[in-house]
């Protein structure tokens, strides 16, 4: 067997059949690299066993049910409500998104409404602008009355 095949067996140790163990032992007699790998791989696996297990605390079941009771007493959260309505998660996400958009739109309009404060100066400015507009309009009308439309005038000249 090649070193590659033996290496695969070595890394499976100790979960090997007696036949596979025999082949590994036979191979490592004459192969120093595989022999070293076998020794180290076996030892590392044994070192891992030195990390001992821990025992659960005796009251773990009691603590668990206390935690469940506590959650029940705290009542339904929105998540629980959605769960209890058996809405699929896509519907839940859609619901949350629609709520979010509605909230943002509402708060935007609320915000823009509340921000508009009309002062007396604004009213005066508006009046000035209106007067200016009226003046410009009357001036334009006068000019039109005197000279006519630009197109008519230029066409007339050319003609």
């Amino acid at each position: 067997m090649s070193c590659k095949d033996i290496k695969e067996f070595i890394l499976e140790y100790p979960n090997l059949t007696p036949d596979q163990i025999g082949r590994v032992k036979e191979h490592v007699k004459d192969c120093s690299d595989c022999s070293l790998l076998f020794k180290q791989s076996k030892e590392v696996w044994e070192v891992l066993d030195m990390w001992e297990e821990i025992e659960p605390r005796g009251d773990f079941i009691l603590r668990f049910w206390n935690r469940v009771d506590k959650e029940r007493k705290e009542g339904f959260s929105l998540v629980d409500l959605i769960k209890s309505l058996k809405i699929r998660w896509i519907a839940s996400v859609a619901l949350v998104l629609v709520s979010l958009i509605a909230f943002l739109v509402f708060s935007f309009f609320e915000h823009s409404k509340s921000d508009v404060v009309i002062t007396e100066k604004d009213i005066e400015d508006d009046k000035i602008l209106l007067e200016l507009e009226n003046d410009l309009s009357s001036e334009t009308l006068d000019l039109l009355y005197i000279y006519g439309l630009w197109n008519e005038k230029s066409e007339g000249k050319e003609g």
Partner: protein
Amino acid sequence: MCTDTDIELINKVKSGDETAFSELMRRHYRGVLNYIYRFTNNRETSEDLAQEVFLRVYRSVKRYKPDAKFSTWLYKIATNVCLTEIKSKGRENNVSLDEIYQSTGEVQDQSGHSAYDVVFRKQVKDLIFDALRSLPPRERMAIILCKYEELPYEEVAEIIGCTPGAVKAYVHRGRMKLIEKLKPYLRKEVKGP
């Protein structure tokens, strides 16, 4: 002693039998606790997270379909809880491999002194934890599940979400890396005269 299978107990839980769930916890709590412990190296955190795992199982027990073994489903949830914990905690409780090496020396140097034993065991535990933590998550999970939980490749594959062949590759790669990490602590080759 309850002789019901896990699936029978689950069906009882689905119909509202809480004692059946207590029995399921009695059967699997130790395994889940120790599985988490290999990820956290902290007893208190492991107890809390094990409770969290069973809470998640209890909440979603109605959705459980007996296509896979109950323990597979349970370890899948435990794995998710562990990964979330690892991500949120980052590299807390960091113990440097070099530090341990300098303070402990080689594994073969242990004496029979009891006080030394306590310190030694703690340091070996930290050393193994540190070596395992240095592995990529899948290699780490595969080794913990195969070595400590003694699960077959097929079941580990279902838990991790890959093929049994991939699990084997993870274990082999992880084992090679552990050899490199723990090499300074292994017994030295005794040379002949």
